[in-house]
């Protein structure tokens, strides 16, 4: 039987506020345990939550970026369950009336664009962390993360493969960083995902029973975990079994999902409006003000790069992968005044390659846009050849400074003076009569040998175009 996979994702994006969603405790990552857990976060008696303005702005900003309805009035609710890292016994979340309503995001898989519906996005607080190791058979609880603002983004069950799910998640990951609402650090848990996965016979209208796969915190894991879960469900059904609705945990070490039975019983959260919080209102004026803070979005930027700089869709996609790289590129184009395609080649090639090799982010690059533009200028005006430019780039990267000084100090300036090149060519022809005879006898491949000799004589500094132009007539005699 042919099966169709149906996936919906719930993505939790940690909002990049300085303080927590309902308290003035810091959200900075990596503090010693419980030093950033205040009385509100601990749920001590008598405390009241007060909503963080910036968290609301960020949620609205996201809603506007995905063309969603922004609720003029939304409500916070208590989601009740017991767990040691949830000191109040409930999580403050939004249930019936979320701040962000229906929106959408376009993904591209195998060259095809597909629109994925976003059901809703709501504000909520994160829980703390439980540490199960090494406490004499007890569990240690760190509540620094408790109360960190999260935006839970829920997709429609529109995704039809693990690949689409990954594309969707990457697209959201890019978007939240573009609009500066989340740092996107998956290793630190700032951006994580649960997947609702089900299968149904192809052509069937109604959905199959779904399982929720939790703990997906890398793009690679999501694809593997979903594929694994799909296989498990198909095997189960084909051997006469039934999928049960449950929560499953992905174990990256074993590459399998396993049932979290303890979560099943707790699945009755008895939501009700939180009496400690009043309804949240977002009026047109606030919406308009937030809309003004929206930067150019990734899809718009990509299209503009294609139109304005005449780049291929592929190059435009690489350059706009982050707002920072796109900004760097545009600075280089502007400052160098060089061909945008040339700039693109060097930014996506040599420059990005060096960042990857060093394993650093653009913000930590030893070369800034101005220094890089200095080099591009000299490639563009043919002061140096592409090959020599790579040497200059390495020196810039290792030792800093500026391209012109390096070219000057190391004598790397390209030789374009045809007289000088001609003299070198004449000498080489005189020294290699054997090869000249062979060339004239029809072995024209030897052209490469002569070009190589000229380059060797000039340490690569001869202008290759000039060399070819002068060499050929001389060899042909």
């Amino acid at each position, binding site marked *: 039987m042919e099966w169709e996979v149906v996936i919906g994702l719930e993505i939790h994006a940690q909002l990049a*506020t*300085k*303080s927590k969603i309902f*308290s*003035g*405790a*810091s959200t900075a990552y990596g503090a*010693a*345990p*419980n*030093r*950033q*857990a*205040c*009385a509100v976060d*601990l749920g*001590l008696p008598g405390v009241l939550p*007060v*909503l*963080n*303005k*910036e*968290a*609301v702005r960020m949620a609205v900003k996201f809603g506007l970026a995905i063309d969603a309805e922004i609720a003029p*009035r939304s*409500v916070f609710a208590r989601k*009740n369950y*017991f*767990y*040691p890292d949830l000191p109040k016994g409930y999580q403050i979340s939004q249930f019936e*009336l979320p701040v962000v309503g229906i929106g959408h995001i376009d993904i591209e898989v195998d060259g095809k664009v597909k629109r994925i519906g976003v059901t809703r996005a709501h504000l909520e607080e994160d829980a703390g962390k*439980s*540490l*199960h190791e090494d*406490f004499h*058979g*007890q*569990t*240690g*609880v*760190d*509540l620094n993360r408790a109360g960190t603002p999260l935006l839970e983004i829920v997709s429609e069950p529109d995704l039809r493969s693990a690949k689409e799910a990954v594309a969707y998640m990457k697209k959201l990951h890019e978007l939240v960083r573009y609009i500066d609402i989340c740092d996107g650090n998956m290793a630190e848990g700032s951006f994580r995902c649960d997947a609702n996965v089900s299968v149904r016979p192809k052509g069937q209208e109604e959905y199959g029973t779904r399982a929720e796969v939790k703990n997906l915190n890398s793009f690679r894991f999501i694809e593997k975990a979903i594929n694994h879960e799909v296989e498990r469900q198909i095997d189960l059904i084909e051997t006469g079994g039934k999928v049960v609705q449950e929560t499953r*945990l992905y174990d990256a070490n074993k590459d399998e999902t396993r049932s*979290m039975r*303890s*979560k099943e*019983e*707790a699945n*009755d959260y*008895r939501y009700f*409006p939180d*009496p400690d*919080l*009043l*309804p*949240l*209102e977002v009026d047109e004026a606030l919406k308009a003000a937030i809309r003004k803070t929206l930067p150019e979005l990734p899809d718009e930027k990509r299209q503009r790069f294609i139109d304005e700089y005449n780049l291929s869709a592929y190059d435009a996609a690489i350059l706009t992968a982050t707002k920072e790289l796109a900004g760097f590129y545009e600075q280089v184009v502007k400052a160098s005044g060089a061909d945008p395609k040339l700039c693109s080649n060097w930014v996506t090639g040599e420059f990005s390659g060096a960042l990857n090799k060093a394993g650093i982010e653009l913000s930590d690059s030893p070369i800034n846009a101005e220094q890089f533009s200095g080099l591009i200028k000299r490639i563009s005006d043919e002061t140096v050849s592409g090959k020599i430019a790579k040497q200059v780039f390495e020196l810039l990267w290792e030792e800093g400074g500026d391209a012109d000084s390096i070219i000057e100090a190391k004598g790397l300036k390209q030789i374009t003076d045809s007289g000088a090149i001609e003299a070198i060519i004449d000498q080489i022809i005189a020294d290699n009569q054997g090869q000249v005879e062979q060339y004239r006898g029809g072995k024209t491949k030897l052209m490469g040998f002569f070009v190589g000799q000229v380059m060797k004589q000039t340490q690569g500094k001869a202008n290759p175009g000039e060399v070819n132009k002068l060499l050929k007539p001389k060899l042909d005699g």
Partner: protein
Amino acid sequence: MSLEVEDVTKIARLARLEIKSGDVEHYASELSGILDFVDRLNAADTSAVTPMAHPLEQVQRLREDEVTETNQRELFQSIAPEVEDGLYLVPKVIE
């Protein structure tokens, strides 16, 4: 509307309340009585009324995003039953 004995047992478990088995019937009947009041409220026509999320006709005030809390871990942990390395210790829970 009436609650069954099983409903009461389930609600009690979700709320982590210990109820003596002999008392369950009693609670079921009392809680059912409360739900009967709700049923009478439900009988009122509210189709023209916007649902209320809070008894106060006000909207949520927002605070600026500023860190105003300082570390008071030692104070908070002085009343905790058990702590180690800055962590609160609780009976083992494991998934």
